[in-house]
């Protein structure tokens, strides 16, 4: 019953917070608002004067940090995959006191990818999307900018902690978590203040981002209050809740917004967006690690053994199976929004669109695969334990990173005022990253299956045969993600300085979620425009027309 009681408390807490936020019965009275603003800026003293408070600077800094974290995270994973077949490859570094194992490198890669790249890209994108959809500005740009550096520091500490969990008797990962918690609190207050000053009703993507942020501290608090934080079950549930709420909901929010703004199509279904929000809260998302080891490590606890009652197994499996609903809803909402009336993605050259399309396509297969692995793990069968590590990396690099990097690239021109330096380089980076991750990890998955089959036949069997050869190819192919990450970083950095300036047309372009304007990318009927929520005052903005012979006439 432990699982159900934790989940019930979580549902109740999130529901109460959502109602309070949505109905305006919130603690943010005028006094607490000014107190919060004081805490965000003046209370930080001279530190906050080191950063600028220009519009969009917070989101831009977070996105740039997130993009930079892609490079070390992809390289750690590559090195981890390499050391899986050549464990002595980095032995020469032992004279400098550094002799990592494959597991340590993959843990470092996953932590930097999840907390560095993905989380920073999502928070950065959220800092642009929430104010935009609320018709307001971010409460404190200076605090947002400053906090990005503190968050980066916490990720760097986590990176060290993945290699050396204890230094001088101090649990390094826990220090990283503590620092990160402070930043989450600051970001949350910043976003809540922003939401409280909204001038219009905010669409669901903004709520997905805010509730996703809130659910992070709520999930930890609920498991801690239930007294299950030190048990294997509590740690496992915490991983599921943080993965399903903090990451999944934010990913859903930013990718739905970007799918609409990048293609100029209206968001396909509002009811599906509501299903995603409700489904992410009321189910257990199977995407992610099969154990609670990450939660235990980050909270400085010993990993507990996963001991479950029959009720826990049934409830857990049922809630994970139900998670297919928000996953399918998100996938279909993204893909149909991107395609509009056509079978192909409209405006496919817009930066970030290929990434979002890839992530949308991978949601269902990876979701189903993860469900099988999770149910295998929670029931104690452990027949698929051999592929769970590779599956986690696939979820990170083929789903979470595309669905966080893509939206960040799509909103970058609006955030920074300049376009990316080159759309062609962006496309190259996508193919390198997606191709490297897909082919490399597929090869590694094949090697995992081969090892599992051999071990099943003979537990003493030597695994240096064919699977080792496949792992070599897999790790070399995965190097494409490192090159893709570097290309993306170069494109973003150069774009910030030399990218073409986003004109008035581009800076004011908006998604059909915001009904001030409607982007017309292809011929459509007035009925469809009105059905998307537009009214007689909505500005219809034609895009991508040219008067070259054989092309559409420029209006």
């Amino acid at each position, binding site marked *: 019953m432990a699982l159900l009681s934790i989940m019930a408390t979580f549902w109740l807490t999130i529901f109460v917070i959502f109602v309070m936020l949505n109905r305006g019965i919130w603690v943010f009275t005028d006094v607490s608002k000014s107190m919060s603003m004081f805490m965000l800026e003046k209370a930080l003293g001279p530190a906050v004067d080191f950063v600028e408070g220009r519009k969009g600077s917070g989101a831009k800094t977070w996105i740039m940090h997130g993009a930079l974290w892609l490079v070390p995270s992809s390289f750690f994973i590559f090195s981890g995959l390499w050391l899986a077949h050549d464990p002595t490859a*980095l032995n020469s570094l032992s004279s400098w006191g550094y002799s990592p194992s494959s597991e340590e490198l993959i843990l470092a890669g996953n932590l930097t990818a999840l907390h560095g790249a993905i989380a920073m890209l999502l928070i950065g994108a959220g800092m642009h999307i929430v104010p935009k959809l609320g018709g307001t500005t971010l409460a404190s740009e200076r605090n947002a900018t400053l906090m990005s550096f503190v968050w980066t520091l916490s990720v760097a500490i986590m990176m060290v902690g993945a290699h050396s969990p204890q230094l001088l008797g101090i649990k390094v990962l826990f220090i990283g978590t503590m620092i990160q918690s402070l930043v989450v609190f600051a970001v949350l207050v910043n976003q809540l203040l922003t939401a409280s000053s909204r001038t219009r009703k905010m669409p669901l993507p903004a709520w997905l981002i805010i509730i996703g942020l809130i659910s992070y501290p709520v999930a930890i608090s609920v498991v801690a209050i239930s007294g299950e934080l030190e048990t294997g079950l509590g740690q496992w549930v915490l991983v599921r809740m943080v993965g399903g709420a903090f990451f999944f909901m934010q990913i859903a929010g930013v990718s739905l917004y970007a799918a609409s703004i990048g293609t100029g199509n209206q968001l396909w279904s509002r009811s599906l967006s509501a299903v995603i929000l409700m489904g992410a809260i009321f189910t257990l998302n199977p995407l992610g690690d099969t154990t609670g080891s990450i939660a235990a490590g980050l909270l400085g606890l010993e990993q507990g053994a996963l001991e479950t009652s029959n009720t826990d197994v049934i409830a857990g499996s049922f809630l994970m199976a139900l998670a297919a609903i928000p996953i399918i809803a998100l996938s279909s909402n993204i893909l149909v929004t991107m395609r509009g009336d056509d079978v192909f993605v409209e405006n496919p050259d817009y930066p970030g669109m290929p990434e979002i399309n890839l992530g949308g396509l991978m949601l269902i297969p990876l979701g189903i695969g993860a469900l099988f692995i999770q149910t295998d793990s929670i029931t104690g069968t452990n027949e698929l334990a051999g592929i769970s590590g590779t599956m986690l990396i696939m979820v990170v690099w083929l789903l979470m990173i595309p669905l966080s990097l893509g939206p960040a690239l799509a909103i970058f021109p609006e955030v920074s005022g300049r376009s990316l330096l080159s759309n062609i380089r962006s496309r190259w980076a996508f193919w390198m990253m997606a191709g490297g991750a897909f082919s490399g990890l597929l090869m590694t998955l094949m090697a995992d299956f081969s090892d599992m089959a051999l071990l099943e036949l003979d537990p003493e069997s030597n695994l240096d045969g064919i699977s080792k050869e496949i792992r070599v190819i897999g790790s070399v192919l995965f190097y494409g993600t*490192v090159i893709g990450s570097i290309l993306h970083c170069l494109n973003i950095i150069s774009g910030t300085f030399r990218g073409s300036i986003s004109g008035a047309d581009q800076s004011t372009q908006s998604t059909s979620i915001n009904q001030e304007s409607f982007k017309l990318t292809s011929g459509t009927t007035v009925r469809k425009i009105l059905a998307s929520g537009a009214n007689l005052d909505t500005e219809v903005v034609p895009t991508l027309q040219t008067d070259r012979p054989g092309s559409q006439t420029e209006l």
Partner: protein
Amino acid sequence: MEEGAPIEIGEFIQGEGEPATSWLFLVLGFVSSITFLVLYGILYPGNDLPVISSMLPMFEGVFDSGIWFFILGLMVGVFAILGTMLSEVTSE
């Protein structure tokens, strides 16, 4: 294009652009290095290259895995990012 319509033949136009001098020197340097290696192999067959051959043993046991080629690639990428940051910030 309609069937049977006359095909327009484009006019040949000659530009006035020239390759950058830096690229010229890079290519010349590359060709000179290759020429030197070929000549050295013909003139002193079987002999080790001066300086380079005496330096290579220093790296034995250090770069003894293929992963180092990839690490070298990463280092180039990281320095490219740092270089881009510095040059973009300082350029006018």
